[in-house]
């Protein structure tokens, strides 16, 4: 994530809405009435609305121009689950942007942006297994008066992993298929592996303060500590009975989730990829990510 503040969103020129055209028609009618009856107050009303109509065009633009957005990489989910795209909006002091519609994958939500920075999240509709780049987000606003619509595109520029949905009834391979091949971790060695969201009870020394300082919330650094002396299951691509690629991946995901639940260390073996046995959230993430990124052939 870049530390530079993002650039303001480029906006499209304002376009009149149906209501905007309706008001234009109304103005024409009022003018005809005013001319016909020589009625100066009707002239004034027509010109008031016309002034409003004209000024709304650039007032609409003001509502969106200058808004800065930044996206966080969304957490991986299983296929079929909805995700959440966390966004950070940066707004000048005293600036207020009501009624901005954000549309992501045909799901819309309306936000009013207050002054300063603000965290909010957009729902990510369920997607198929794989690596996705959510977006672009279409932003538009009809504030004020709903006469003009102004739009902007925001490319979040983040990746979203979708694991295969854990599915399949094949029994967990309980036999340790290749005990001699299992790498033995050297005692006492811990490898820094990544961060995961903070859970109450995590050691303070493991908190990722750098991320916390950026206002992204609390994360805990996780360290891989390969379990020793436990029997490990090998979850092997070839051990899955034939099916489509997705079915096989789903079955592997099922087994990974089951192993975690049973506290049973496991290794993953895919064509051209092997992950040494292990247990724990980091290991699970690594394995599921491998499944998510799996490409055949």
């Amino acid at each position, binding site marked *: 994530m870049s530390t530079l503040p993002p650039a303001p969103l480029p906006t499209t*020129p*304002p376009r009149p809405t*149906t*209501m905007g055209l*309706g*008001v234009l028609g*109304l103005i024409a*009618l*009022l003018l*005809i*009435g*005013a*001319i*016909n*009856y*020589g*009625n*100066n*107050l*009707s*002239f*004034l*009303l027509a*010109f*008031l*609305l016309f*002034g*409003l109509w*004209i*000024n*709304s*065009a*650039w*007032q*609409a*633009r*003001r*509502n969106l*121009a*200058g808004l800065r957005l930044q996206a966080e990489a969304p957490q991986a989910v299983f296929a079929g689950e909805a995700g959440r795209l966390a966004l950070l909006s940066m707004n*000048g002091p*005293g*600036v*207020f*942007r*009501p*009624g*901005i*519609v954000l549309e992501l994958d045909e799901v*819309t*939500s*309306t*936000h*009013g942006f207050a002054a300063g920075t603000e*965290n909010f999240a957009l729902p990510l509709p369920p997607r198929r297994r794989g690596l996705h780049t959510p977006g672009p987000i279409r932003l538009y606003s*009809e*504030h*004020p*008066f*709903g006469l003009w619509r102004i739009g902007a595109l925001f490319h979040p520029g983040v990746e979203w992993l979708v694991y295969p949905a854990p599915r399949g009834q094949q029994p967990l391979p309980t036999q340790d298929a290749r005990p001699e091949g299992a790498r033995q971790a050297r005692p006492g060695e811990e490898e820094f592996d990544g961060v995961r969201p903070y859970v109450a009870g995590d050691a303070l020394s493991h908190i990722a303060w750098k991320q916390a300082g950026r206002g992204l919330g609390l994360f805990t650094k996780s360290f891989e500590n390969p379990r020793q002396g436990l029997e490990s299951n090998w979850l092997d691509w070839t051990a899955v009975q034939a099916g489509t690629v997705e079915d096989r991946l789903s079955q592997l995901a099922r087994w990974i989730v089951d192993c975690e639940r049973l506290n049973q260390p496991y290794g993953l073996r895919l064509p051209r990829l092997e992950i040494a046995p292990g247990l724990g959230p980091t290991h699970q993430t690594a394995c599921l990510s491998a499944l998510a990124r799996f490409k055949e052939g």
Partner: protein
Amino acid sequence: MRGPEAKTPITRLDPLLFGALAILLLLHLPNLPAWVGLFIVQALVWRAVHDRGQQAGSRLPRLPLPNKAFLGTLLILMSLFTYVQFSTVLGRDAGTSLFVITSALKVLETRTLREARILALLGFFLLLTHFLFSQEPLQVLLLLLPLALLLGALLGFGLGEDRSLTPRARLSLAGRLLLPTLPLMLALFVLFPRPPGPLWGVHTPEKRAVTGLSDHMEPGQISRLTLSGELAFRANFDGPPPPPAQRYWRGPVLWNYDGKRWTRMEDGIRPPPVEDTLGEPLHYTITLEPHGQNWLFALDIPVSVPRRSRLTRALELAYFMPLEDRLRYEVSSNPDYRLDTELSRHERRAATALPDGLPRLKALAATWRAQSTRNSQIIEQALQHFNREPFRYTLTPDTLPPEGGMDHFLFDTRNGFCEHYASAFVLLMRAAGLPARVVTGYLGGEYNPDGQYLIVRQSDAHAWAEVWLENEGWVRIDPTAAIAPNRIEMGLAGALEDPSLLSASDRREPGLIRWASLKLDAGYNAWNEWVLGYGPEQQQKFLETLGLREIKLFSLGLLTLLAAGLLIAGGLLLSRHWPARLPRDPVEADWQRIERRLAHQGLERQNGETVRQFTQRIARMHPHLRPALTRTTDLYLRLNYARTPGASTRLRFREAARALQRELRLKL
């Protein structure tokens, strides 16, 4: 996106939209037949009950909206009723009635966002229908309220699903957004090409009761008119107004007398008489109230002709149609003149015709004729007669018999108003062989130093005489002056024996009420002059002062469009660097109010004291405030510092803050 979004169902109308339509429809009650009013009220109550029932926790029964078939049937029935009532569906009254009925039905029909938008457009058009009925400043002031509500409703459409702005916040935001549009509105008002006439002839005069001079005169008619304190017209002079003795406002000139009633003589299309004028003419602008006749008034004698009117042979100004709307016109007059030194045979016959009877009047005139060597001596004798004999000037003269009324007046009752004296004088002149005619109009006018114009009221209505003399032409003689000389210099109140019959403004008593009424009248005059009276001529004049003398309507239109285009372009360029601002965050505003209220009670936040510490300190000192204080503080801190405060937090904070403020107001 438009389609599905527009069909979004709405359970209840935006309170601003409903409020605007309710006011606009109810304000039409006095303008429409009672059954339309009854229907409006029913429709509004139905919608209000329905919307109320949709709210959570409402105890009202769930009232469904009527279905479309029912509403369609109602529309057909109501249209038929309207046609039966007005015998037309066109014109101001019938058209408004139909439009109001349609709008009320639409209020009942609206179930989607799109329909609500249409309803708002109907609301703006309802404003126009109000303007057709009245353009009085007070009425317009009243209409500003629904206009503001409509704009607030429009703002709501722009916000979509964002419910963070309360209706009141929307109103004030709409007001702020409106401010930059006002200069453009004024520029368009001044510059927009004004075609001189209606686009098509829908302007059907509507019947209404109006007061004013008619084109005939009977005893008692003018005295009845003078009892009304209503405004006749206002006259703005370029320079100082003429002295009271010259304030004779010429109206219909009456030639024919049938023994009771004086009437005009149709003069066809003959050109106005040649006149010699001496001295400088007076230029002035008159704003004439509608009086249902086609007379325009001007000081004796008019030397220019306002637009769409003509000068008759008798120097009456005739408008092209009966006056149903207030009219503003410019005219020039010359008080020094010599009028019509040649009299045609036809005119001489009409100006000397006498009814049968009236033996005593004719005998009196004959004696004057015999005693005089010159015509002017006859006039003098007559005026002296009125002055010498015990004639009384009164608003309540004795009724005269239908036969020989003028004889009775001259020799028996001897009390009357200006129409009696003018009538008797003209008849006496005719009997003495001098051509004479009655001129009706107004005499006088009150000078309003605020705005520097003359107010002429119906109570200034007057009748005088014109006598034709060889080499001199028509000469104005006012017999009333011989009986009540004060009438000319001091107005009616100064001349009457009992002015208590007159309205307060006509008695011209000094005091606060008179001062206030003059101020108010000046306001009305300015409104008429600057808002209602601005038309093609004023526009031409204004453009000339700008140096745009030769400008055509077409190029004016182009110029206006160009200006509007520049405004869009310039605004768009600027808007990038000029984001929308809301002066205060509503949450912060609420919190500031709470802190101010506490400070007012001597509880100020110390330097370096956090919000939490501050409120806890107060809670310790005033335990009864603790629940409200804690709740408000929690929500305030959550809104300011929480990662995701939650959508309803703003609303809950608002409620908590309001509750706390109420408690603080009660006691500490």
